[in-house]
């Protein structure tokens, strides 16, 4: 094209003028991604927003004037990368974790207190149902508890056998060697169940309530069998040492699921999607806590229960754990962000 025909604005000149900024921004972003904000000098930190804005303005101009696909793609990718770094995370992982443990976790648990109460009632209801049924007619037991799960702990079993399963007798079923395996199995199994009862919450919370009800049913049936043989107190201790933590965690996971279900059914003024997203965030926080609680419960169950056989001591530890969780969650603290 000959010189007189050239328009006064040319995309070639535009690029030549701005290209240095884009390259500098690209280098800065790469450094930031690779080595974090600490690697930048204060001069570079001051440059970052300036270059970011320059790149965004270049993108606007290029979109309106340039047809160079490679240039447009590059500017778009660079702007997206820059946006998420400039407006992205401003916290280190460590301070995030600290804030989570100190404030966010208990605050999220407090926020679902209504759901926690409901789920606790559902579990208790399940336990009462199966307990009263099995207490009147032991045959019901076989409907509630799976053969493989019970491991011989059913109404036909002798008092001696039942006592041995509680860890008082000599023979613990020959499983003494595998305490850590047992603990691991319990932890992963329980976590899976809890995650399920949380994740199924979006189906209006119905599957969540059913899962929690079943948990209560198994519990009540076992309780009925043991108490009918006069081992109710011992069974309580066997259950209590880890059960306070584990059942609390189960209730919380159910509450988290129910929160999402409730948000989907009754979104209020927000759209259903927004309501679900809001509830999901609170519930997500609760769930991280639940998994940590289940880890503690798994340790108590796998090790604590097998090593500590005194019923009173078991009750003591269970009570201390319960008080600890209650205090941690529900005692208000300074600087709270509920």
């Amino acid at each position: 094209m000959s010189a007189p025909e050239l328009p006064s604005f040319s995309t070639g000149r535009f690029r030549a003028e701005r290209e240095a900024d884009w390259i500098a921004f690209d280098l800065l972003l790469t450094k930031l991604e690779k080595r974090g904000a600490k690697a930048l000098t204060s001069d570079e930190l001051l440059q970052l927003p300036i270059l970011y804005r320059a790149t965004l303005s270049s993108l606007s101009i290029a979109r309106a004037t340039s047809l160079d696909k490679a240039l447009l793609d590059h500017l778009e990718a660079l702007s997206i990368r820059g946006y998420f770094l400039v407006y992205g995370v401003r916290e280190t992982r460590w301070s995030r974790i600290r804030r989570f443990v100190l404030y966010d976790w208990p605050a999220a648990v407090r926020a679902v207190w209504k759901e926690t109460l409901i789920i606790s009632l559902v579990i208790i209801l399940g336990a009462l149902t199966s307990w009263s049924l099995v207490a009147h007619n032991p045959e019901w037991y076989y409907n509630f508890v799976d053969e493989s799960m019970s491991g011989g702990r059913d109404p036909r079993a002798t008092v001696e056998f039942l006592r041995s399963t509680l860890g008082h007798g000599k023979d613990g079923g020959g499983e003494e060697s595998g305490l850590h395996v047992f603990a691991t199995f319990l932890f992963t199994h329980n976590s899976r169940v809890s995650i399920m009862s949380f994740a199924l919450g979006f189906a209006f919370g119905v599957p969540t309530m059913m899962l929690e009800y079943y948990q209560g049913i198994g519990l009540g049936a076992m309780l009925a069998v043991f108490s009918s043989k006069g081992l109710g107190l011992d069974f309580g201790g066997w259950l209590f040492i880890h059960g306070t933590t584990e059942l609390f965690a189960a209730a919380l996971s159910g509450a988290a699921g129910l929160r999402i279900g409730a948000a989907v059914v009754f979104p209020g003024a927000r759209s259903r999607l927004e309501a679900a997203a809001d509830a999901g965030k609170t519930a997500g926080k609760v769930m991280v806590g639940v998994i940590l609680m289940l880890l503690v419960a798994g340790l108590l169950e796998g090790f604590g229960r097998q090593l500590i056989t005194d019923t009173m001591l078991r009750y003591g530890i269970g009570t201390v754990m319960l008080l600890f969780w209650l205090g941690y969650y529900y005692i208000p603290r300074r600087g709270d962000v509920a």
Partner: protein
Amino acid sequence: MTAATNTRMRNASAKKVREFVTPEGVDLQLRIASSGLRLGALIVDLLVITVTLFVFNLLVDWISHATPRDIAFMIWMLGAFVLRTFWFIGFELGSRAATPGKRLMGIRVVARNGGRLTADAVVARNLIRELELFLPLMMLGVGAAEDMVSGWTVLAGVIWSLTLSLFLLFNRDRMRMGDLIAGTWVVMAQRAKLDSDIATADEAGAMQFSDAELSVYGIFELQELERILRGRDPRAMREVADTIRAKIGRPVAEEDDVFLLSYYRQLKARLERGLLFGKRREDKYASE
């Protein structure tokens, strides 16, 4: 290719673009990642996790010479759970909001409302993955374990759980259940290298085209031509050059690359001038 297919293609790609306005008022036009890329990323991540566990197992084996069976069992069970859960959460909390698999595929997680991607959103979307991955498997497992459940019941269960797992195929934002609950999107975030500017170069030896010769093509054709020129494949260039020559009625007189480059530069200058005057000619079917 007809005008209709061209328009359809443009609409299809426009459907994947979501408005995402920064505080500076610029629309970043994020593109939703396709389901294929999502699956690819998941497979890569699961593979890496498995290999990591395997290596860790070997390491323990090597340290303690002969690993008791129960230790190996524990490593697999606990390790698989912990890695699976915290692999995704840990990586997505990083500044790039992507697991290695996602990074490889050039995609990342963003908050749907344009705000910061919070830790709770990342946690929520990843815990629900557990459900999406394992519910269909569990349904099958339950069916296999219990004889009284008929085949049809199992099938119904599996189908029900699959609709949850494949939820992302049924909405235009390609959201998993987890994305829905967490308020997130997975969008394209690949990098594009800044290629050299092929439009500005020496004017010597350039051919001149008349206005009529340049008016046969639009922006779509221009950018296809740019792709061919940057690709530098002689056979493709020959084919395109012949097509253009036939269209504008020029004899084969000069090298293909000289011809194409000259044509590209002048067509681009012409169309960009049109842009400055508010005329955007999308393709050759659009009117001047």
